[in-house]
């Protein structure tokens, strides 16, 4: 590309950059407030509210969390476990469904593809799901209740992968393998998967983030405090605070309640998003590539 830009183009570049910068600031500002909020002294938060550059710093919130470390660490462990096991499981079974769907010579394709599509548009709703998982599979208060429901396999990811296979793996390769005497399993594991790293990384990231951020499964299926995941714990703390501060019944009955301070709520959020923020840049290169390739054409 030539380095000499026309005058009009230069102005265009400047304007675009300004707009993008503003958008970037809009995205970063809340996170910045979150982080500074967690290290601002409680008194300043109440008296002056949040600010971008707090006057009085305090690590009280983190010290409080450190004292509660056993709860937080356990929750971290649970989240880590379900994220790893869930993502691995998802990455094993999703391509196994997506790959046959991408093959033109697979006869049941339309029916199965329809079923996959169908789940993207409709689902049974929470009560039937709850009955199924608790009454038939008895998952309530087990670690599997955080892994299996809704997250393990997702119609959208299957379609994304199917499209990737259909467009990036030439039929000729599969034919060549067959001529060389490879069976279907061998073709799948030896040829298809190694050729699909970008889409695997993309779907892996999607699923991983979904597991990391999930709190709904924990909300419905877990009442045992030992199985609380990080997001579930955080969500419960925040919701309880909100409920308590709006419940007139309790204050009328003479109950008063020590609530975690604003700073602590912020600090828990920071602790919750930190790992994702650290990991994201490493995945990003695959991420963009995979989604761009997989998304072309339906």
């Amino acid at each position, binding site marked *: 590309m030539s380095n000499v830009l026309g005058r009009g183009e230069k102005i265009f570049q400047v304007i675009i950059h300004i707009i993008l910068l503003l958008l970037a600031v809009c995205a970063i500002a809340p996170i910045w407030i979150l982080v500074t909020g967690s290290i601002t002294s*409680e*008194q300043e938060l*109440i*008296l002056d509210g949040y600010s971008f550059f707090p006057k009085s710093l305090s690590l009280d919130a983190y010290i*409080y969390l450190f*004292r509660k470390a056993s709860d937080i660490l356990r929750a971290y462990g649970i989240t880590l476990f379900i994220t790893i096991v869930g993502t*691995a*499981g998802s990455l*094993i079974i999703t391509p196994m469904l997506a790959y046959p769907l991408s093959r033109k010579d697979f006869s049941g394709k339309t029916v199965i593809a329809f079923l996959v599509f169908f789940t993207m548009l409709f689902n049974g709703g*929470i*009560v039937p799901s*709850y*009955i199924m998982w*608790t*009454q038939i*599979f*008895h*998952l*309530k208060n*087990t670690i*599997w209740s955080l892994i*299996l429901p809704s997250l393990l396999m997702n119609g959208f990811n299957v379609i994304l992968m199917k499209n990737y296979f259909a467009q990036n793996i030439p039929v000729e390769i599969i034919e060549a393998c067959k001529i060389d005497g490879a069976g279907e*399993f*061998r073709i799948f*594991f*030896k040829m298809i*998967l190694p050729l699909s790293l970008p889409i695997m990384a993309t779907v892996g990231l999607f699923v991983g983030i979904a597991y990391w951020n999930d709190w709904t499964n924990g*909300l*419905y299926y877990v*009442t045992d*405090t*030992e199985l*609380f995941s990080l997001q579930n*714990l955080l969500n*419960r*703390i925040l*919701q*309880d*605070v*909100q*409920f*308590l*501060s*709006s*419940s*007139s*019944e*309790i*204050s*009328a*009955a*003479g*109950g*008063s*309640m*020590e*609530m975690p*301070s*604003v700073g602590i709520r912020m600090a828990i959020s920071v602790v919750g998003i930190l790992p994702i923020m650290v990991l994201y840049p490493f995945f990003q290169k695959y991420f963009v590539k995979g989604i761009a390739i997989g998304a072309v054409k339906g």
Partner: protein
Amino acid sequence: MKKSRVLAALLTASMSVTLLAGCGGNSGESGESSDGVESIVFATPLVKTVDMERIEKALNEILEPKINVHVDIEGISMANYNNQIGLMQSGGEQLDVMGYIGTYSSWLSKNQMLAMNEYLDEYGADAKEVIGEEFLKSTTKDGSVYALPSLNGKAASMTIVIRQDLIDELSLPVDQLKQASSFEEYCENLDLITEMYAQIHEAHPELACIVPYSSNTLMFTDTMPFADRMNDDYGVLMPDDYETVANVYETEEFETLVGYAYDWNQNGYVLEDATTTQETGNTYLMNGRAASFFIKGEEGQEEQIETATGVDVSAIKILDPFITTTDVNSMGFAISATSEHPEAAMKFLNEMYTNPDVVNLLDWGIEGEDYQVMGDGTVDFPEGVDAQTTQYGLNMDYFFGNQFIAYIWGEGRDTTLMQRLEENNKTAQFSPAMGFSYDNSSVSNEIAAVSNVGAEYLPGLRCGTLNPDTEIDKFNEALYSAGLQNIIDEKQSQYDEWRAEQ
């Protein structure tokens, strides 16, 4: 290649094993075991995340030998409680006793509770006696008792909480405030408070004279003296006519009260973000932002607030208590409509209202670990434990059954408190509609619409940011076009029916 295949096989295998194990493990859990001990599930809302397993174990050590009942406690976060109960009931899970806070009328209209009369008479006679006829009316519909209200100080009334150091510094005339027995006396109190705020504002312009205690309302504006809110404020009984359901927002009294709020706001006495804040009055008090706030409180609240905030305050009741149905049935315990063990459930409830060991365990935890009895008969943290490190610390003594037989928390507190609360419950004025609870299922659409209108106008009116001269009319117009009249008519007809039966 081998690796992936092995991994896949392992995962599949491990999942199926867990599924099978899950099936096996759960089937033997409920119901009667061989030694005649019946297992019941007790769901309770909790104000914070606490491990209930220790409590459950200690509880069963008391209950199993005494009444042959084994209780599984399901502690559920309060914010999600109602949903979870709905799921458990429609999901066919075992659920026997369920505590509630604020969901009585919605459970009643959805038939989620079992009519417990026969069990109450047979297995809960003692509980019935301590609760008393009058309070039990609040959870009775058409002759059937659906829940047992928690026993605590019900005679809560409008109370102003002011920082003691300000009273001393400015010699505020707080002793002139009196428990009002009429609307006029109530207004005299408010006039006096206005003068005090002027003094505080002049001496300490940096303080918010008044902050909302909770829910974005200054409180004194939404408790109409001696009116029965009839569950939700949309259609109330005003003191001049306890027979007709009226729209409280059209009354002169409402205009007068929000007028105070508006004046205070205009003069800069009210916290700026009163209409949006998520913090409670305690937080503002603790951090030196608030000079005072209103609460609906009972005796003992002063000490509660001082313990929670570390700030020396004076809490002064400015209105006579007036007990309505909603005040009494706002929290309590019901037996699930899906319960297969109602007798055992009632036996357990009976213990919760009569056995101090059970109540203390649920209120304060395990003796020696979570609390210890002090020399003066109160309880407090044992050595080495404080509010931050305690494993329990629910402080829900107002909730679990009978507060009057429990210990009082906090060394040095007045141990006659419970007698006084109990006395107040008996001497307070009761609403003529005591025992009437209305079924809102036929007007649920209107309720939703009207509540939306309320959410738009009420915070502004109650905190004094909206001018009542112009906004009250708009508010009422919006309420009527959202269907308020239907709600009032429905309430009136149910109320007439109820009165005819009395």
